[in-house]
């Protein structure tokens, strides 16, 4: 198997936590992993992305080539569109529909929604509403991961186990909340 994933968002939205959960699941499966991250200046409210590659065979490049991504997982709709040139023909976009407006020239929000909805292979999640409805605004990134689970070619239970490992030190309550968020995310796209 081989899955190339682009994680996208705005600095501080928690895309690296998503990457960590997928990474641990892949590590437990004995898969090869490469995960390029962005640190430093752009983390201050700028656009951030991570290239995450998992494969049963050795991986050469840390970066995903143009047209190579199987999935774009985005915490923000405009950030999902930013990486379109990297998406493969049959690739999926799984994104939050909640815009994060921190720039004066943020594009027309309706145009962004229309562009996303007009594409095949798109799953839009109203993470803002879901976080409020279930009183877990801090676990919305795990909802997004849950929605993306089927596109990752990693078992759902593997992601659950990974959450147990990664969040284990933070206590059972945090673990359960994140697993619930993961499950809710998957259910809402079924």
């Amino acid at each position, binding site marked *: 198997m081989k899955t190339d994933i682009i994680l996208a968002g705005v600095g501080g939205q928690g895309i690296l936590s998503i990457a960590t959960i997928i990474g641990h699941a892949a590590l437990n499966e004995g898969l090869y992993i*490469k995960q390029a991250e962005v640190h*430093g*200046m752009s983390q201050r*409210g700028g656009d951030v992305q991570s290239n995450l590659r998992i494969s049963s065979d050795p991986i050469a490049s840390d970066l995903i*080539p143009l047209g190579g991504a199987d999935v774009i997982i985005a915490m923000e709709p*405009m950030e999902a569109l930013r990486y379109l040139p990297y998406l493969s023909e049959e690739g999926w976009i799984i994104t939050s529909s909640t815009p994060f407006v921190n720039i004066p*020239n943020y594009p027309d929000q309706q*145009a962004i929604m229309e*562009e996303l909805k007009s594409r095949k292979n798109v799953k839009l999640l109203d993470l803002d509403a879901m976080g409020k409805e279930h009183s877990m605004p801090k676990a919305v990134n795990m909802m997004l991961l849950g929605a993306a689970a089927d596109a990752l070619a990693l078992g759902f239970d593997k992601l659950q186990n990974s959450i147990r490992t990664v969040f284990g030190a933070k206590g059972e309550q945090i673990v359960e909340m994140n697993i619930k968020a993961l499950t809710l995310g998957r259910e809402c796209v079924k």
Partner: protein
Amino acid sequence: MAKKLLLGDQAIAQGALDAGLSGVYAYPGTPSTEITEYIQESPQGRGGEVHCRWCTNEKTAMETALGMSYAGKRALVCMKHVGMNVAADPFLNSAITGVNGGVVVLVADDPSMHSSQNEQDTRFYGKFAMIPVLEPSNQQEAYDMMSFAYELSEKIGEPVLMRVVTRMAHSRAVVETGEPKAQNELNAPERSQNWVLLPAIARRRYAALVEQQKEFDALSESSPFNVYTEGENHDMGVIACGIGYNYYMENYPQGSPYPVLKVSQYPLPKEIIRKMASECKSLLIVEDGQPFVEEQVRGVLPVECEIKGRLSGELPRMGELTPDNVKAALGMGSSQVFAASQNVVPRPPALCQGCGHRSVYEALNRIVAECEGARVFGDIGCYTLGALPPYKSINSCVDMGASITMAKGASDAGVFPAIAVIGDSTFTHSGMTGLLDAVNCNAPITVIISDNLTTAMTGGQDSAGTNKFEAICQGLGVDKEHLHVVNPLPQNMEEITRIMREEINYRGLSVIIPRRECIQTLSRKAKAKKK
């Protein structure tokens, strides 16, 4: 033996720990910061077995490492590429003194300038100092190279330079670790004169270094990290350096059709390259950063073998390598399926909401608007973002500390008011000496030390001067009457503006220290407390 998912930086740190490291010396700088942080959080770092406190700047770091090496122990120095300019004096001279305990100087370059003001290539420094340079192509190699580098350093009696780039430093992969080695025993040389670089001794030492070059060449020819793989098609040969090798191989999952030389140890293995040139019609040089190898291979005189790379235009002259620009250099078409969206605009970084620097710039902009001819000289840190909208407050940002010295120079030339804006950590890194220059002339400039009690841009590391700034300024001779501390909160705007107005219009040296903790470190501390 354990398998861990590590950043390139963390693999380097673990490799150094397992090589019997006794001290890491560094100043934070993207993309090198995580090396020292990893060591600080390791059992050896927490237990005090490995020295790992941040240094004031890269020069003090390099010199301290040299002192540890003098005493026989293994030291690591880490910095970003521009930090090497600060450390260059002790670095170059450490090649003349030589080392006792192993020294690895780890420099993280930033091609494409993700978080930097230039994309200088550190391999030039290695050639300049005439010492071996290592450039890992993946995280496992980065780990393995650390033990190799320390052994090499002690064997040749010289520091070893290791160069990585952002995509190596900040990318994770699974790394298999080995058995940790014990630290070296204390072993300071009896009365060696090698370390006294008086001209007569330095000449002897330099001659020895020149003599050693043949040995370094031979070591590169036989290095386990320089790997030549034969290929069927001799229309082209490929020399791929560091992670450039990965981008090349990404395009040939079934194996390279051309002969390929992976270069991860310098000086260049010249014999293998000469052999490739005699057997191939052309050579493509794939290297991240500047055309360091390409210039050497190309030379000045005509050669039969065509040399292709960044200078010939096959690869872009600037910016980092990607699998896509390497693919284009190989003459393959792009695999792009979808065009870029028209509904996407850039999202530049910005100062955080609630950040103290915001109040500083708001006040400063009011005063600057009142003073015709005012110029503001900025410096390096989060507050450099004050150059962008909505503030557009600063007119320069060059290198660590240049705000104060440039303000003084502009003032000498007749600019008034000339104002410097510098952060607390940048001030202790390289601002204090410039302030002394300004004090000695009573230069009519105002220095604003925007103190957020941390090294914020790189993620909130300790700042060397915390709680010492008034004492430092007074010690350097700043007049107490013109030294002020303010709290940059929106409700204090009136007071801050009044003080700034008075001091900026004063025809002598003044220092204003707006002080409020970085909101990122503040919230991290609050979270840690909750646990």
